């Protein structure tokens, strides 16, 4: 055999023993779309109007009074179709979606595999071309799927009824807070019960949405083991308590085994208990909201139930309640009379609505398909493997120099909030530096929600979707960066080196004189040299 050097013999095995990926992300250096404009080009033709219509009504726009006629054409770019495709395809290559990286570094987000078959269902005309106000007889398939997903989630949670109207976890939190308010109003205690108890480890939207609904936010502090402090809670509840809202496990991955005592304390004070099940991925078939004493809960279908995150929605926060709260749900709800599926519109104390129509039905369809692909046993297996993966990762991360996991030393469920405090003290390298350096090895890495109770935090959630080899790859990248931090911190601090973009000069983004939220603002605020 002739090789490029011209020698005869066997080809040498190509060495592949490097531990971190020799990655380089696409960098297209694309202009902003307005810079692609070429007057006279166009991307598509709109449907033509038949001559008979024109003959009948004329130009159509003369019906507009002068005050409503557009004076100046919108300054949209003029671009041929192929160039539009190339522009956006190139931008897409500058995004590290979950189909491309070992997406375990966005802890709390449950970045699992979104099966391709489910995407086909969601994009079929049988889903995409339905209008929400069609006659019920023409959407029986969609209604059956919605109703059955409700039944499945009742099994997972123990709740009695689900609404799929909230368009995300944040909107589900708003829905919970709205139900809490309406519930107490219905009992004549709306003004009195104005205190909403939650924890610092809960999602920022928990406190934020309750504040929108007029509640005073009271934080139950964490004890030295990372649990919400039960004794503190006892001192905080009163006749002013509207509700206690919490995740379990919280983003630490620590399961609060005394949770029933918490819900008992709140119920004894007359408050409701709201369960944020954003971290449900380790609990499917293991333990439920009902037995822990919650009156309501919600699941993010874009987390636990696999629908794609779509750069941040559309999504669904499926909210479930016990029977006594069903009449407070946003309407309408889907029901079944033994023969046909229909909308139940009469809800005595409904909070009204939170999102148009019924929420995001393609998300409902995808989640239904995902559950059917797993069955009861598969759901439980997903939860167990998610926890196994997490404890494997946990074990390995604690062996990395400079990394730790504050609070209890025992097992964690599906995720862990770690800390680089030691690494930062030793080397000056912060969690933000590690974040940027991880991009050089093709990995997302997210720090944590604010406030940073855990110093220099990072949160990993491996889910059930990644193989051991992939977990090992992620661990190897973190190990490599830790070693760099101790030996050559500058390479970490000046990262990213192999990513699409570089460090952004952020000061302009906080200065009203300089910030530019649109291209036209940018052109107005900048001078060409």
């Amino acid at each position, binding site marked *: 055999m002739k090789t490029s050097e011209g020698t005869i013999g066997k080809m040498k095995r190509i060495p592949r023993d490097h531990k971190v990926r020799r990655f380089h992300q696409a960098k297209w250096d694309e202009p902003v779309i307005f810079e692609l404009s070429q007057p006279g080009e166009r991307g598509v033709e709109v449907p033509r109007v038949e001559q008979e219509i024109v003959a009948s009504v004329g130009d159509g726009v003369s019906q507009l009074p002068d005050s409503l006629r557009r004076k100046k054409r919108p*300054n949209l770019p003029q671009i041929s179709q192929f160039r539009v*495709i190339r522009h956006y395809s190139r931008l897409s290559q500058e995004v590290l979606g979950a189909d491309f990286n070992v997406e375990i570094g966005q802890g709390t987000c449950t970045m699992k595999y979104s099966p391709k078959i489910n995407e086909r269902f969601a994009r079929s*005309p049988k889903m995409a071309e339905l209008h929400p106000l069609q006659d019920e007889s023409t959407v029986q398939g969609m209604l059956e799927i919605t109703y059955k997903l409700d039944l499945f989630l009742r099994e997972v949670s123990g709740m009695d009824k689900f609404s799929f109207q909230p368009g995300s976890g944040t909107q589900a939190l708003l829905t919970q807070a709205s139900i809490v308010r309406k519930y107490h109003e219905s009992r004549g205690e709306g003004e009195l019960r104005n205190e909403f108890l939650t924890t610092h480890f809960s999602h920022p939207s928990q406190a934020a949405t309750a504040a929108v609904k007029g509640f005073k936010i009271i934080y139950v502090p964490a004890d030295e083991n990372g649990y919400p402090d039960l004794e503190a809670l006892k001192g905080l509840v009163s006749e002013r308590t509207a509700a206690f809202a919490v995740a379990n496990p919280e983003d630490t991955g620590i399961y609060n085994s005394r949770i029933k005592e918490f819900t008992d304390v709140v119920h004894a004070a007359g408050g409701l208990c709201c369960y944020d099940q954003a971290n449900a991925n380790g609990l499917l078939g293991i333990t439920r909201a009902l037995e822990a004493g919650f009156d309501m809960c919600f699941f993010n279908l874009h987390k636990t139930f696999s629908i794609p995150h779509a750069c941040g929605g559309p999504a669904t926060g499926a909210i479930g309640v016990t029977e006594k709260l069903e009449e407070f749900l946003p309407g309408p709800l889907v029901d079944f009379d033994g023969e046909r599926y229909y909308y139940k519109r009469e809800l005595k104390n409904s909070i009204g609505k939170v999102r148009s129509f019924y929420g995001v039905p393609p998300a409902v369809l995808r989640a239904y398909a995902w559950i059917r692909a797993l069955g009861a046993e598969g759901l439980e297996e*997903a939860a167990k493997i998610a926890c196994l993966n997490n404890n494997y990762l946990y074990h390995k991360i604690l062996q990395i120099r400079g990394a730790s996991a504050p609070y209890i030393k025992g097992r964690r469920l599906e995720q862990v909030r770690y800390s680089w405090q030691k690494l930062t003290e030793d080397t000056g390298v912060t969690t933000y530096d590690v974040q940027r350096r991880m991009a050089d090895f093709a990995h997302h890495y997210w720090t944590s929600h604010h406030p940073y109770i855990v110093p220099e935090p990072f949160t990993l959630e491996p889910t059930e979707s990644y193989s051991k080899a992939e977990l090992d790859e992620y661990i190897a990248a973190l190990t490599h960066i830790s070693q760099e931090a101790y030996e050559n911190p500058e390479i970490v601090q000046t990262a990213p080196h192999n990513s699409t973009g*570089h460090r952004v000069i952020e000061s302009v983004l906080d200065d009203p004189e300089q910030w530019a939220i649109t291209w036209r603002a940018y052109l107005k605020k900048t001078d060409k040299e």
Partner: protein
Amino acid sequence: MSAKPFAHPYIPNSAPAVKEQMLKEIGLGSIEEIFADIPQELRLKEKMNIPPALTEYELERHVNQLMNKNITTKEYISFLGAGCWPHFIPAVCDEINSRAEFLTAYAGEPYEDKGRFQALFEYQSLVAELVDMDVVNVPTFDWAQAASTALRMAARITKRTELLLPKNIHPDKLLIIRNYTSPDLTLTLVDFTEDTGAIDLADLQAKLGPNTAAVYFENPSFLGSLETNGQLIADLAHAAGALCVVGVDPSSLGVMEAPANYGADIVCGDLQPLGVHMHYGGGQSGFIATHDDPTFVMEYPSRLFGIAPTEVEGEYGFGDVAYDRTSFAKREKGKESVGTQTALWGITAGVYLATMGPDGMEELGQGIMQRSQYAAKQLASLPGVELKFSGPFFKEFVIDFSQTGKTVKEINAALLSRGIFGGVDLTTHDLQLEQCALFCVTEVHSKEEIDALATALASIV
């Protein structure tokens, strides 16, 4: 034959050998030990009542069997609108929003998710041209949420608590706004004039007061009619120290004036008409726009992506403008809340506007007006069938069937049996529009389809 060890295709480490190896490495005897903290009384004892797993092929057959029970708006002729509208969607929109890079991404950073930041910055910039304003947000859930937030922004800016809304607002939108603005803000409804559907200016003047934070109206209104007194309404609001918030259909803005040019301080609307399928209502996506005034910008709860230099000369960078406003940074002390909303539809709307260009948007608006006027003319020529309002309209209009002796329910049932989804029945909407229906006609409707509707109605009424 012995049972083969099974690993679920979606769960790689369910392979028994791997599972065992991992347990061994971390010193566990079984996965069960991980759940030791969960008290026995909280453990689920029985199996969940969920059917056994289907293989991919079985799943495909099963879901298709169910979904094939649906009849779509591509199979029947549909004149349904009322907040979710049929429009022509260029193939490039689906091509881009189905790319896995965008579809499966979430919340990366401006360097390795730069494409997401740029695509959303461009969407903001493209919608900005349409509304002729300098600031547009990363999209929220839908028009109703955009209006709700716009009104809360107005209340914070004016430090007032009363909101004036038109009585002919979509009832569902009113429910959403009511829930979102309670308990601290109050809503008062302003009448509309019976002949044109426009806002009753005398009633508006009577209801404006020293605590009015905002006057909200829509163009076109929920009932399709156009508000021709926009500047007057804005002037009245401003004279009372209130802000003017206008909801708008962006598909109209190739031919209709941008609300900013008749006095709107905050503009909001739905992006679904811009390249997003109806998805049974799942395609809704809300936008908010304002001028580049820090007083307004600092009140947005949404993320606002801005353009910025990077440490590399000649490189565009993108990032969050005034991030400290948000609940991500400040929890309950931030502005309302932010989280997962409808980013993919924002990117799609950007692709749509870049593809349509100024000519496309102008032709779109004109073509819609021609078809809807033609449809209204054909229907109103039927005996006993009348146009409810006399003023101009864009793509929706109200038809009054009350003189036909038939209810809209009966008429729609008869249309359905002929393969037509008729207009939305307004009888139940509490707007004194007994036996009236809202018809939607856009660029997707051919003359043949409009004529088919007229012919069917002629035989029904």
